[in-house]
């Protein structure tokens, strides 16, 4: 299939929105992070494949904090700048497990459909 080299391939924004909380919880399960660090990590680890409007990260973080899945704390690290680090909570870990399972099921289900439809597109 021909792909215009001048157009950067981007993922469907709606798909990304649905996975944002899963990605955030997953990253925070490794260690506490601040907003920019989360965005930069996703960008780096996906080679820029997952790109979204950076600002939309914060409403999601705040919503998750309101839901008790994460906790935000202002912390000053060695650079001397105060940043709001988000820590995953026990409830957040439970939610992450559920979301990972759901994601796996969703991927399997979608893949099954795609495999059967392969070559017909």
């Amino acid at each position, binding site marked *: 299939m021909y792909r215009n080299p001048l157009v950067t391939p981007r993922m469907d924004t709606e798909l990304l929105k649905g996975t944002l909380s899963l990605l955030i919880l997953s990253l925070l399960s490794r260690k506490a992070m*601040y*907003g920019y660090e989360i965005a*930069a990590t996703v960008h780096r680890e996906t080679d820029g494949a997952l790109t979204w409007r*950076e600002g939309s990260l*914060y409403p999601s973080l705040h919503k998750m904090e309101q839901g008790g899945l994460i906790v935000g704390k202002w912390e000053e690290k060695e650079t001397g700048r105060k940043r709001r680090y988000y820590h995953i909570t026990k409830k957040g870990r439970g939610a992450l497990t559920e979301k990972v399972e759901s994601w796996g099921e969703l991927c399997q289900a979608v893949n099954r459909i795609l495999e059967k439809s392969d070559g017909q597109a």
Partner: protein
Amino acid sequence: MDKLEQYLDQVCRSIGGPRSLRRHVRQELREHLLDAAAKHRTGGLSEDEALARALAEFGKPEEMRTELEATHGHRVMAVVIDKALDWKEKTMRAKWLWTTWATAAIVVVIALAVLLITGIELFIVPKFNQLMRDGLIDPAIIDEQGVSWMLSWLNDFHQVAEHATWWVLLAAGAWGLFEWRVRSENKTLMRLSALGTVAVALMAVVWLTAATLLISFCLAVPAKGRLARIFALEQIAKIDVSVDALGEAVAKKDWQTAGDHVNRASQEMQRLAEESAVIPALITRNEPATVEKRRADVKGARETLSEAQQAVVNQDSGRIQTAIERFRKSYDPVRKGAKRLER
């Protein structure tokens, strides 16, 4: 960094909840943007370009605000203030709008004043002068109150208004000259000032003339009341005489004389009923009867006199007596009222 703070203002101003929350959100977004800008600077962009790129990647302020408001709610006051500021920004720039509006408003005031002056000159002043000629407004009474200048003012007003065409032509000429000759950057303001001055002067004339007419009329009303009362008492005396003479003529069966008296009584009664100011003048301040009741009495008396006229034509003594009795029944309250006034 003004650009950054301006952006944060737009995003955070209307977020609901406590002030500390807005402060935290603002600080958090600022840190993110500073980090992003620093990264772009290391990539070789200038400070301004780096910040512009960071802001573009972060998202439009309206979208960010909407998303944060969906999470934290929004402040109603902030939304109202935002709308008001937007409106102010837009309208403050529209200088032509303000000057056009002000000019239109002043022109409307001038037109209204001219209309009022024309109305006063065409309809009110002639009526007022007619009342003076009829003696219902006594200049002596106005003079006694020390406001004789009011009548002089009305006279002057009338003299000036008589030459209205010339005044209008003069104003149009002055206006044309102004538009033709004056070349100044302040021309709009000068036009507004001139129109405003004309509007104030014309409204002063309207108010002064209206006040003069009203005050003069109010001062002269007692004289009018006295005249109406005198007229009413005269009419009542004439009616009494005619009705008494009618009774005597009927007793003598002198139908010709009876006809003359009943017709005269009917005419006098009609004059009494038709003069609108007379009936109210027949009621004293402490009397319980209303003007409507007294008018009904007069109407009833007029009807019985019509019956009497018909009975005289038919030379029917019995019907005439009955009509006269009924006439007295309706007419007595009017007469008693008049007697009270005499006292």
